[in-house]
């Protein structure tokens, strides 16, 4: 149903209403607080629990990961690829550890599943790369954004 707003004669002329509108905009111009973040200089503050770029936690320079394959199993996006290997001391370790970040949905289930506290999600949210061969084991071991 078409509802017509009730207006008096003065409002129908619009002049007063237009002037009111002009006053609102000029008020915003001089006294309004700008809400924009000046990005490279200012950063938005995210929560500590923000799930960003991945890394593999290392202890004494050796990755915590034992290639137990729990994270690729739990991963709903199937973006983690691990090839397991054996160290001389018979310890299991990942020869290859790659994350297909384009498939990753940043759900954080790998972090939850990991028994060794190895795969972690950091606070970093600028994740663009200039080459395709990113997010391999070497990259993930660089401890970016280690908390």
């Amino acid at each position: 149903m078409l509802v017509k707003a009730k207006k008096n004669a003065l409002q129908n002329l619009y002049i007063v209403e237009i002037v009111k509108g002009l006053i609102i905009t000029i008020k915003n111009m001089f006294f309004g607080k700008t809400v924009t973040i000046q990005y490279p200089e200012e950063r938005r503050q995210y929560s500590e629990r923000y799930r960003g770029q991945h890394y593999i936690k290392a202890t004494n320079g050796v990755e915590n990961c034992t290639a137990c394959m729990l994270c690729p199993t739990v991963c709903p996006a199937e973006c983690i690829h691990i090839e397991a290997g054996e160290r001389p001391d018979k310890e299991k370790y990942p020869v290859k550890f790659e994350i297909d970040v384009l498939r990753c949905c940043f759900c954080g289930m790998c972090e939850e599943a990991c028994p060794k506290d190895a795969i972690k999600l950091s606070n970093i949210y600028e994740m663009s790369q200039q080459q395709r061969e990113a997010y391999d084991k070497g990259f993930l071991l660089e401890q970016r954004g280690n908390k």
Partner: protein
Amino acid sequence: MELSLNWIAVIAKVAVVVIALLQVVPIMIWVERRGSALMQNRLGPNRVGPLGLLQSAVDAIKMIFKEDFVPAHVTPFYFLLAPVVAVIPAFMAFAVIPFASQIEIAGQIIQFQIADLNVGMLYILSITSLGVYAIIMAGWASNNKYALLGSLRSSSQMISYELSMGLSLIGIVMIFSSVKLGDIARAQGETLLQIGSLSIPKWGIFLQPVGFLIFLTSAYAETNRLPFDLPEGESEIVAGYHLEYGAMKFALFMLAEYVNMTTASAMVATLYFGGWQLLPGMGWLLTQLPLDGLAMEWARVAFEVASFSIKVGFFLWLFVWVRWTLPRFRYDQLMDLGWKFMLPLSIANIFVTGFLIYRGVI
């Protein structure tokens, strides 16, 4: 000698006006972008130069160096002609606007007006209505339905509002008995009312308040600015008539729009706000200057140019201010306003003015 001084004056005036108009455009684009940003609680372009002032210059350089692309489906001749046709009348229209009174050099009176035509404001009305040809040409040659829709809207809008615009000026012509803008600006220096020490000048706004509102609204419609920017109507018809244009050809349309805005503001200032007549307080300031003779005359001219620029600047700002305050009209509302409200009102204004002149009130 006589001839040469006149020629120098004419060339100097043309150069000053054209250069000033070209400078107004980047400054206005900057004002528009920063002003709109601040009104919307943003910051706007603030990276290039102090306060982002060089943004327009950088944009101009970008526009010049972009590829001059002509789509395959357009009619190239008219497609390329349209931006030129848009710009030339925009600059031509400013020729009859007086931006200061006159000065006497070596026994010759030099008017600060490129051409004091005896058709005056009629010249501006006819030249600015040529601008619609450019828009039609652009829309038709683009061979694109949205561009054509935009240009058709533009033509109908311009025709509708030209009527009330022209009729609203009749009141001014009746009061000042002239269509020459120089005469009108000079006549507005007289005093209308004297209340104690406060004297109200005979500005058009005090004599023709209704005419002023009609003229201002029509000027917004004629320059295709919001709330009457249906020819562009981004949300409905992509970008309107300049949809297929890019690089400097688009920039020329932009230039024409802003120059048209400047001309419209200068018209409003000249017809309704005394043109180059000094602003309140400036006359007193002028008498305080320790100058005499020709230097004093030049100081007076400088003050007149300054007060004219302030008035034009205010109305240019009003264009921006209104644009970021009011939403766009719906098409039928636009036509209703033009034909059912503005046109009868402007005709009524003529009759009331005529009656008041007949009774000797004004």
